[in-house]
């Protein structure tokens, strides 16, 4: 199976996207056409956003592979400086559950609503076991007084795997252009 060259920086992504789209030379992934794979990936992302925006956070860890997963929210500022510090850094599904229990039971914060808009879903590379997918996100936040602001904008860099016929995140890196957090960051992005 052909492997599309893995690209990580936004600049090289732009080049890859505009020049040769190697993915189009490939017909299937895990027995599914690349067109259907694109549709499945977009559906995964839409369901992920709905889970958070509808405050069904107890379901959120199930979007990740239970055997091995990684989730982080890191600022573009730190990524571009080559620094590892994230805002959230989870290396197991258990840590994802602990985040949710903590925000439900322990943490003190004002009630706010999130609204995700996810777009530009681009399968960057394909190998036998996983897809590398980049997409853009914007999260609007509505405060308790009814005012809505953009809370965070950035991109997702995801490694997606198939588990029991369902797509799961083996790795989800939220790279936030918005490197200044407005007061506090409670729910995942």
């Amino acid at each position: 199976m052909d492997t599309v060259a893995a690209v990580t920086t936004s600049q090289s992504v732009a080049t890859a996207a505009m020049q040769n789209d190697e993915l189009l030379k490939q017909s299937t992934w895990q027995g599914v056409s690349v067109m259907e794979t694109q549709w499945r990936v977009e559906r995964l992302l839409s369901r992920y956003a709905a889970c958070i925006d509808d405050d069904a956070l107890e379901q959120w860890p199930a979007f990740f592979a239970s055997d091995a997963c990684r989730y982080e929210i890191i600022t573009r500022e730190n990524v571009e400086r080559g620094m590892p510090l994230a805002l959230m850094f989870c290396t197991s599904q258990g840590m994802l559950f602990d985040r949710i229990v903590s925000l439900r039971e322990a943490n003190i914060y004002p009630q706010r609503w999130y609204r995700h808009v996810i777009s530009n879903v681009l399968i960057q590379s394909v190998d036998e076991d996983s897809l590398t997918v980049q997409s853009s996100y914007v999260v609007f936040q509505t405060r308790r007084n009814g005012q809505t602001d953009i809370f965070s904008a950035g991109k997702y860099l995801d490694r997606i795997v198939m588990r029991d016929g369902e797509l799961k995140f083996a790795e989800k890196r939220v790279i936030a252009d918005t490197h200044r957090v407005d007061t506090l960051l409670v729910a995942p992005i």
Partner: protein
Amino acid sequence: MNAPMTSFNKPWITSPDGFRVPYEVFTDQSYYDQEQEKIFRGEAWSFVGLEAELPNKGDFKATAIGDTPVIVTRDQEGRIHVFKNRCMHRGAFLVRESRGNAKSFDCVYHQWSFDLTGALRGVPMRRGVRGEGGMPAAFDMANFHLDELRVANLNGVIFATFSETVEPIEDYLGEEIVATVKRIFNRPIRILGDQRQYVHGNWKLYAENTRDPYHGSLLHLFHNTFGLYRATQTGFSHMDASKRHSLLKVRAAAAPTSEAEDKEVYKDVRSYNTEFRLQDPSILAGRQEFDDGSTLIINAIFPNLLLQQIANTLAVRQSVTYAPDAFEIVWTLFGYEDDDEEMQLIRMKQSNLIGPAGLISMEDGEAVEIVHEAVVRDGKKTSVLAMGGGYAESSEHMITEAPIIGFWQNYARYLGLTSDAAK
């Protein structure tokens, strides 16, 4: 902007039931303007960065002292300088990036060029063009050196001051705070990155928060919720002799206190629940790094720095002010250059505990905002600081608000407020 401080006889009083601070100090523009001149641009050393942020000659970062923009840089001889980030010609920003490396600072407006020591080296068309224009004969580039601040470097922690008269940094901090800084910065550090937190409230509410051992186990319920907190750990709340700075420290208890004792202490607290357990307790796994067994150090350094060790998370938090109702906390987390891979992972996992998304610290931003919003029209009303006795004395426990009173007494002194509290 600068409202005249006509009647600065404010209700700062030590009453029998505690020390009282009028809420207008958080919301009034005149206080904010006075703070900029008398504290941030006055007789104080402000934190501006870590030497490890500027490893190479020519490295610079842009930051601010209060709301005055400054540049921190390392010159070709390796010396650290701090300048106002303002061209001597017409006032434009010299540096428009937050970080970088430069051979000189060149203003983009008219390309006046300053070297890394702050000296003006180039003025385009200074002698005119084809005999026309040019600067007057009296113009002397030596008179246009960048506004430079005094700099102090304590084990790689860089402070700067606008004052010519403030005491040396060691005297300013006092022996115990200097020892704390030296203990944490005992060998080369490795910076892990920054986190930035914009808070819609007054910066002094955070200065209070970081000098307040009383709130720790009451606002931050992560440990209680997961059955981890030990209220009865031993700790202390110290101040330096001037009482500007504070040092809150917790040591792991020699013998763990019982769940029964914790339950007794927390019987009035809204959440004491031991039914939850962490699914992945590796977030709390760590190593004892310091000989004295300290598990928590919260060292507030007047006016704009907090140095912390919480378990294996090491960080500086710098407050940058924008307005009476807005400031930013810049968190810089670090480890040591000689950290092995496992130690790096420990620090990364524990970083989940702190910062604007921190499981045990996210509430502080909220605490600032709920006060700020609530007091906005009650400037003449006062808070009460009474826990621990209502006076600014160091104590060998943490059930106190004394370090906050120390902060306010100094604040009143710096601003020249008429106050019996400042006596």
